[in-house]
């Protein structure tokens, strides 16, 4: 019996890193947006927070696109 530990290990590693990275990015994006809203409510603006948030969301969207590519390919 040959168990492909290497494949299992890489599935484990890749899943762990990718999930934590994606969820982290997305959370940062949400936090950024929320900061920007708070700032807007007080009459100011938080360009950095907003730009950062959009960058995070763009990366997440790229990850989703890659996911679709993996499914189709």
């Amino acid at each position, binding site marked *: 019996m040959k168990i492909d530990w290497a494949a299992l290990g890489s*599935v484990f590693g890749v899943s762990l890193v990718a*999930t934590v990275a994606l969820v982290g990015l997305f*959370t940062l994006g949400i936090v950024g947006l929320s900061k920007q809203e708070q700032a807007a409510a007080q009459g100011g603006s938080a360009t950095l927070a907003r730009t950062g948030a959009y960058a995070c969301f763009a990366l997440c969207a790229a990850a989703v696109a890659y996911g679709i590519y993996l499914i189709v390919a």
Partner: protein
Amino acid sequence: MEHITLLLTIVVVTALVFDFTNGFHDTANAMATTISTGALKPKTAVAMSAVLNLVGAFLSVEVAKTISKGLVNEEGIQPEVILAALVGAILWNLVTWLVGLPSSSSHALMGGLIGATVASIGVSGVNGDVVVTKVLIPAVAAPLVAGIAAMLSTRMTYRLDKKADKKTTDKGYRAGQIASAGLVSLAHGTNDAQKTMGIITLALVAGGVLAPGSNPPVWVIVSAGMAIALGTYLGGWRIIRTMGKGLTDLQPQQGFAAQTSAATVILASSHLGFSLSTTHSVSGAVMGAGLGRKGGVVRWSTATRMFVAWGLTLPAAGLVGAGSEYVARQGDWGVYVVAAFLVASCFGIWLVSRRQVVDHTNVNDVESEAEAVPLATAAATAVAEPAGVVTTAIAAVTPPPAGSVAAVTDDDLKTTIPAPNPADPAAPPAPAAAV
């Protein structure tokens, strides 16, 4: 296609029924967390999942071409064997749906296939190593991998968003969750609809209608895609309830982390060559997300019932598959008896399910142990017949899911002895007195 026999027709229709139950059973994987956190309305969620499943079915035919490869020796596989395997898988899917437990449709199918093959050509027809490496190890690994990933990411997301405004974040998490759930649906369509296409193609090849090695014909692709989408749309609400509410209570953050983890694990595993079951990954991810929140709880009693169901999937579907194969082998009348038995038991299970309807209106009501257990009992009572030694032994070990076991094993007895068939639809009135 000059000689599609009646037997082949029965096999094809049964395969489509299996496809339907597969969609029905696995809606929960994609949409349970989205529904329970309120990211999408129940009906919208299943409609979206159904469309994505249909789209997924048309994306490629790679999986269809590799179905069953390695697990059993394809040479000498008869349409009867495929029919028997499907009967085992469908019944297991329906019984687990009745008691509201998520379990892998692929494992049920493999179980049925193994059982039918053993009954047909003996133990030598099954590749034991492949069973361990492709079925048993993934069943343990999938929930662990997805669970740990979901737990860590849940922890992190709660730490990061501590200072953020709750209303904005909830909206964001919902959007993210919908995207992950969409990916899971799409992946499910490409994988599972194609399994059915593969089986139908296999049956057509075995029946001599198609040349070995051919691609699935267009009508097979279309009908398989439609069957899985229809099943998904109707939604296995009982399982959705268990997965979304029964295992743990999910907040938007947790739902997002769980669904993302499940989507990542499914995609990573199918592309790194260690295929993991969708159902197992999602269940693991949901439990991991439950553990990741401070004060979050996992209802281990529900989880234990689920694990027991996973363990029983192979033997139960295998037993029914073996029994069906034994009867179907007797000739044309055997095939009809198996088909009639399948219809009768599906109808019986459906009747039992009507006693306590779970649909899109009450899917988010808190699932109680009290609800699931009488159902299991009802299932057992519906087919109350002298239980075999195995049934009794298992019943002694694990009280709650025993109902499902009893149902399956007794169904199997019925396959072997065709006579009690008509008793099935007639049985459901019995629980009225019992419950």
